[in-house]
């Protein structure tokens, strides 16, 4: 049977730089601060932060290849993951703890978020918005789990097990009693969406969101 549905219809064009959130995150970090990047990949964000913001940066990364790349770049990165390793860091160890595009892959996002705010005075969390219109379209109209350029793996192979919308995330922030210092949504072109736009608008047109949280 030739299913008419195809992935191409569900594919959404992502921003030219797939990790456009790095730019936004870098702009949110105060120069000279102590930063932990959880799920730091090949260390690109840490490098941006070190050169542009002169931070004292550390990282945690799950993949051996990623850790090796980081180590070769001179970054201090340990092999580990958010669920298991954050608990071992002391309180207030960092000015910022960054979790970029990772929270949806953690086993226990709530505990991870609480740990972020325990070991960092601020947490910067970016995540793909599952409320984006293209995802709603894919699921609602085509009846298929979305495969986009940002979320390029099928449901059976994706490490992303805890998707949320911007609204969902805001709900979790309230539940753990944290404070949203700033929040930004990025549209499909990677542009920051207007601050005055209503939440519902962000939740529909924001492809990614970046939150800065602190303890209330």
């Amino acid at each position, binding site marked *: 049977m030739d299913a008419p549905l195809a992935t191409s219809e569900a594919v959404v064009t992502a921003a030219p730089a797939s990790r456009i959130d790095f730019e936004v995150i870098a702009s949110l970090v105060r120069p000279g601060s102590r930063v932990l990047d959880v799920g730091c990949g090949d260390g690109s964000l840490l490098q941006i932060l070190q050169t542009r913001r002169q931070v004292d940066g550390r990282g945690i990364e799950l993949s*051996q290849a990623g850790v*090796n790349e*980081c180590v*070769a770049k*001179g970054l*201090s990165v340990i092999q*580990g993951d958010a669920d298991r390793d954050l608990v071992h*860091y002391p309180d207030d160890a960092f000015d910022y703890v960054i979790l970029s595009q990772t929270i949806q892959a953690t086993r226990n996002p709530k505990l991870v978020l609480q740990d972020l705010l325990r070991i960092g005075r601020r947490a910067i969390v970016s995540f793909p918005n599952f409320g984006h219109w293209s995802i709603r379209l894919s699921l609602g109209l085509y009846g298929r789990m979305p495969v986009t350029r940002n979320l390029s793996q099928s449901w059976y192979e994706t490490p992303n097990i805890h998707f949320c919308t911007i609204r969902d995330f805001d709900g979790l922030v309230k539940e753990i009693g944290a404070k949203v210092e700033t929040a930004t949504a990025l549209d499909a072109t990677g542009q920051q969406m207007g601050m005055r736009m209503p939440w519902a608008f962000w939740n529909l047109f924001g492809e990614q969101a970046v939150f800065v949280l602190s303890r209330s």
Partner: protein
Amino acid sequence: MTIKAAGQLRKAETARNEAVEPSGPVAHFGPDEPLRLDAGRELSPFQIAYNTYGTLNADRSNAIYVCHALTGDHHVASTNPVTGRDGWWSSIIGPGKPIDTDRYFVICSNVIGGCMGSTGPASIDPATGEPYGLDLPVLTIRDMVRAQAMLVDRLGIDTLFAVIGGSMGGMQCLQWAVSYPERVFAALPIATGARHSSQNIAFHEVGRQAVMADPDWRAGRYILEGTRPHKGLAVARMAAHITYLSEAALQRKFGRNLQDREVLGFGFDADFQIESYLRHQGMTFVDRFDANSYLYMTRAMDYFDIAGDFGGRLGDAFKNTRTRFCLVSFSSDWLFPTEESRAVVHALNAAAASVSFVEIETDRGHDAFLLEEPEFFGAIRGFLSSAARARGIG
């Protein structure tokens, strides 16, 4: 006497000569420079046999101290005078290799208590004119490192660019960072831990009991009495060797394959390849290693417990450290499992130290640190290169 037996005897004689009068460089420390020991006594005079590779730069800033493991020695990247084989880490140390002797000045010494030229139980006790045997005080990893620091002083080096070691060498590496934090720019502890576990002490005790149960051990006075407890030492080595491998690797290499036969022998010869392999490991080991030294080395590892030295808080051992660390573990190492390295990483994180950590996927067990593993070599090369940039080494 068979040719094989003659060869073994010759090797044992060479080993004995190397223990007393090593063929390479030796640093002598006279009565004015005693080695203060954790046992509360002093060792004096004493000597350290060592090798160096590469050239010390004008700033004296490119020295790397390589610490050897339990049965290793200072012939790390050059031919071993006893076995005639390449140095035990020749694959990683040399021109253009991860520990690049075109850039770095590499020092490796035989540990105190060893049997390849540094003062140990086979050395002559000046008080009696006889080999120390068990009269040598029990030594610790900290004692070994204290002696190494005296050698580094003697070589006119203030701060080491890096200290690197696997297993017992990794213990020394950690101890360096704890005892002399200001003298260690970078530390690379590999396949190690901050303490010896109960299971590891247990295996060592089996080995020691095997040595001491050999009637030729003669309460440690075998050199004087002209005997050699090679049967006991071989058993100790066989038991220990199993812990350096992994079940998966043994199965892959040997399986249940038979040795030089088609059917089971219904006897107690080495029917299986694994038995033959272990017997060979035991036999070749006793030709090159001193039995008493084996007791002292294993004891030193058993006593190692950095947290214990700091009221049970490992993080306190690394307080205010400025050393940059890179720890490496191997996924199939059950002697020093990844969790042991992770515990050190967590302590270093708690101390806000600069620390990297990578677990290498391999089925080759603890001994993987002696083997060519591309990811492992990549991590070492990358870490050292970036640290060298930070240190201003060209």
